[in-house]
């Protein structure tokens, strides 16, 4: 009897109490109030447990860059990368915990798309710091990371936006052949994705322009046929400079725990908890960049909401197998308890087993819901710039002032804005 109680107690002690996603509310609230610095303070005051260290670092890095602390943000990202490397091996203790208690007992290693996103944001930090060579390092690292993911069995093999960004970086560095390779990979990824994301027109223009510039006549012709674009607009680049604007909309979806009761042959219901993504709302239907007298609509280039959902979907079979194995194991423990300690002991162990059965709701919550991109080619000079956001009914919701921008010949000027709208949860 006492031995069994010990087991029960252990189960209670080992399992985390509050789920990860529910502890994020205050930070979210501060972000909605456009107070990233306060959100950063809030996060730093509540360091996560050791197994959630990666999430802490990722959220910290994101809040740091939202506060304009790009160098600090990169230091956090580098720490996160080192941690991911460290966590690559399998921990037997954690595996045992996951098999007997719940998935949250495992150290969070980051979903595949989250690991890739680290490079995207670190590259953007370096771009903001004006260090293109260092941003290029990230472009190379993304390639290594994706190559490695393609080897694994996760099914996550390409990441369209990170390829596109890599292409932009190479092109800004004047390395046109590398840019072409990255653009090709981005094109393939956008074309083959199952996420409802089309091939951005900007990428189509890049492919046309570069294939012509590099003298790839056959490829150029294929693209011409495939895109049916007015080429004159995309090719008149001589003597001009460019604005590249990124808009981060809302926040990535949040995982909620959904419980299911499964009836086994004994007739006693078993509780199984699964994470489900709940989208956070977006109030933007489209966005338009205006520089001087020129305007250009922004296009959806990355959809973390859809990527996250697809990723969870692909992990589900393995997850369900693990959950069922755990349910059976927990049932056996309670059956033994009943046999040795009587009805009450069996009931107690069962109750504990059910209480500890919570879903792993951890995910990188400060990622945006989606990324929009707009590019404009302009004659060198200084222009006033703004970004107009349109609501769901097509009404002008907000005009963000981007200040005076200086366009230099042959240079790309990268700018970014983030829009996290106030949002109250219904529950």
């Amino acid at each position, binding site marked *: 009897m006492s031995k069994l109680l010990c087991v029960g107690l252990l189960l209670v002690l080992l399992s985390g109490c509050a789920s990860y996603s529910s502890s994020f509310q205050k930070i979210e609230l501060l972000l909605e109030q456009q107070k990233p610095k306060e959100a950063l303070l809030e996060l730093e005051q509540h360091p996560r447990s050791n197994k959630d260290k990666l999430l802490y670092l990722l959220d910290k890095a994101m809040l740091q860059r939202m506060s304009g602390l790009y160098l600090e943000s990169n230091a956090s990202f580098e720490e996160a990368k080192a941690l991911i490397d*460290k*966590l690559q091996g399998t*921990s037997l203790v954690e595996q045992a915990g996951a098999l007997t208690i719940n998935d949250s007992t495992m150290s969070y290693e980051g979903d595949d798309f989250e690991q890739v996103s680290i490079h995207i944001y670190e590259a953007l930090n370096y771009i903001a710091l004006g260090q293109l060579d260092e941003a290029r*390092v990230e472009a*190379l*690292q993304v390639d*290594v990371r994706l*190559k490695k993911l393609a080897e694994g069995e996760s099914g996550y093999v390409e990441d369209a936006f990170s390829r596109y960004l890599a292409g932009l970086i190479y092109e800004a560095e004047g390395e046109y052949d590398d840019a072409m390779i990255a653009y090709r990979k981005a094109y393939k990824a956008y074309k083959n994705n199952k996420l409802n994301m089309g091939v951005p027109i900007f990428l189509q223009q890049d492919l046309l322009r570069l294939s012509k510039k590099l003298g790839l006549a056959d490829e150029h012709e294929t693209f011409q046929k495939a895109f049916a674009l007015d080429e004159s607009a995309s090719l008149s680049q001589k003597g001009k400079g460019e604005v590249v604007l990124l808009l981060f909309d809302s926040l990535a979806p949040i995982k909620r725990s959904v419980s299911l009761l499964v009836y086994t042959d004994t007739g006693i219901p078993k509780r199984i908890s699964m994470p489900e993504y709940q989208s956070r709302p977006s109030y933007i239907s489209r966005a338009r960049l205006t520089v001087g007298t020129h305007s250009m609509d922004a296009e959806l280039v990355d959809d973390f909401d859809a990527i996250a959902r697809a990723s969870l979907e692909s992990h589900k079979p393995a997850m369900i197998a693990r959950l069922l194995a755990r349910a059976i194991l927990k049932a056996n423990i309670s059956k033994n308890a009943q046999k040795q300690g009587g009805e009450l002991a069996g009931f107690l162990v069962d109750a504990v087993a059910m209480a500890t059965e919570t879903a792993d709701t951890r995910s990188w919550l400060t990622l945006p819901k989606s990324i929009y991109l707009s590019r404009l080619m302009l004659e060198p000079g200084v222009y006033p710039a703004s970004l107009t956001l349109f609501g769901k009914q097509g009404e002008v919701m907000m005009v963000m002032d981007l200040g005076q921008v200086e366009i230099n010949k042959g240079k790309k000027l990268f700018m970014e804005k983030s829009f996290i709208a106030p949002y109250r949860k219904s529950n």
Partner: protein
Amino acid sequence: MKHEWAQKMIRVSLAGCLLFGLAACKTTTVARVDTDSVQDLSGNWNDTDSRLVSSRMVTDVLDKKWLTTYQVQHGKNPVVIVGAVRNLSHEHINTRTFIADLERELINSGEVEFVASSKERGEIRNERADQSENASTGTQNIAGEELGADFMLQGQINTIFDEAKDTKVKYYQIDLTLIDLKDNRKVWVGQKKIKKILETGMFR
């Protein structure tokens, strides 16, 4: 009976002590080590790599003919300026460490003179402009007396990484070039290659 109870108690408290000891043993220890010692932790670029590069480059650049050729031809020591050393690798590498090593060795050899790089010059010029307004006439350093460089040191780091399962191969190639500012001739090319093989375990 009582004896048994006491024994049990001791056992429990021993176990408690052990647990407590395990939990409390997280302290920081510091050991000073020789800067020449090799500590490979993550397999990334580290101080040892930087040192290997600088020692190789220093011996190479002082040994080669360009130096004596210049000294014989012009009857003076060459003046060198450090240009950009581009990091085109897969890692964020601080190139300043081995460049500073190289600079120091060359200056201390007494055979090469260095002038401030374009980044460093800004501050010096500000100071000179300030002197022209605030320093006494006898101690002023006037503008327009700067020493023009004869050579520029440029370079880049390139890497090739390959990875399969638990094995990683990292190959670094560091190229430094000394270019004659008069006619763009490359008078010296230094190269250092580093190759590492990393094996990662299945378990942690």
